[in-house]
């Protein structure tokens, strides 16, 4: 993943998506161009600990309206990834991630509820194959487990 600074520069000056972005329209203080300005000025550190970078809903409206088909969600994703590396992830994201890397899922079918609803037994999860693949992936990146 990388950021295209030429596109970011244009993005910083444009703002056409502000009329469609649900967070720009409805969450006071959410202002992605401020964030992008700081990325361009190499002064983004203080955003890593902010609520703002998690307020991008990844709805892709900015991408679709953008004449570059770019969208500032790219910048937000980059900052969220960096924030996660520094352990600044919101609690629920952390919980979700932990469950995902442990089970390959974010929740399991509930057999008692299924029985009550007359649903057939749920198909088997791919947990074992996923965990094997996850290990291969970590090894390829040199992650110690």
């Amino acid at each position, binding site marked *: *993943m990388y950021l295209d600074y030429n596109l970011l520069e244009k993005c910083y000056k444009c703002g056409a998506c502000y009329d*469609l972005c*649900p967070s720009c329209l*409805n*969450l006071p203080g959410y202002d992605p161009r401020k964030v992008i300005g700081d990325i361009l000025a190499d002064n983004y550190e203080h955003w890593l600990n902010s*609520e703002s970078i*998690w*307020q991008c*809903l*990844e*709805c*892709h*409206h900015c*991408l*679709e*309206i953008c004449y570059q*088909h770019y969208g500032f969600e790219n910048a937000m*994703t980059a900052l*969220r*990834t960096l924030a*996660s590396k520094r352990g600044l*992830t*919101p*609690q*629920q*994201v952390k919980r*979700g*991630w932990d469950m*995902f890397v442990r089970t*390959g*899922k*974010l*929740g*399991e*079918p*509930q057999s008692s*509820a*299924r029985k009550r*609803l*007359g*649903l*057939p037994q*749920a*198909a*088997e*999860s*791919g*947990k074992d*194959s*996923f965990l*094997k*693949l*996850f290990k*291969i*992936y970590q090894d*390829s*990146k040199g992650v110690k487990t």
Partner: protein
Amino acid sequence: MKDFAVFWGCTIQARFPFLEVSTRLVFERFGLPYRDIDGFTCCPEKSLVNNIDHGLWELTAARNIAMVEEMGLNLVSPCTGCVSNLATVNKELCHDEAKKGAVNSMLKEVGLEVGGHAALHHLVPFFHDEVGINAVRSRVVIPMKGMRVAIHYGCHMIRPSHSLNNDDPLEPVKFDRLVEALGCESVKHRTKMMCCGQGLDRVDQHENALHMARIKLRELSSLDIDAMVLCCPSCYLQFDNNQFLMEKDGEKFGIPILYFTELLGLAVGYGAEELGLMNHRVGVAPFLEKWERIGGEGSEVGGLESELEDIGVFGL
């Protein structure tokens, strides 16, 4: 029609299994060749996994897609997030041979290979494009004429368009056409394309999530709407569960939330109980009562159409 695997996703199976009930029932009613296959994992969810590890996000999605390909199937999902994630990775791999090679070198270790050629459908555009409007219309038992519904597309049913390519990403029409084929009026409203905002609940911003839900629900309360119709478990959580929580705290909206498969199920003759509608947190009784009251009034299918139907023009 090619057989397809149903990708239920984590949320529907873990939290809203009754949505699986209505989905299975409508698949049965339309005689669709659906299959349950072993071995899927989370799609995986973008905001949780992609924000932390893009490579693992791609690899996990590629594994799910490869399983479908290996069985020679297509894929249909009643979850917008799942389809959008799978389709986005699928497209990324199709446009980047080097990346596809790297992914496949790892998938090989678990006996899989991704090619990128399976069709990955969201259930709503799938019904529009593959089952067809006329097949849907011809199976309606009690038309919904007179019922005023607000359609909530849900962002990831149609976006990003470079991956899904199934409708106009800013002014979509297919969901509207399907609901209109059942006889409903799809009521125009200002917040129709607004994101539900449920993502905020997943990043510890519950009050902001409620704020977003409230904006749409308030508009709908002012419009004499019988139900909001959607087809995404995350949007469903936002508008059913969070509406319920706000009503418990004294706010009043009273907007029944119907999954597309439930609305379709009702129209093709299944009962509300059979479809699992009593599992909703916001009651759907007002919708059902009005529908029963006006049930099919003045909604005779047009003469020309029924004549054409009699001679089998519409097929299926």
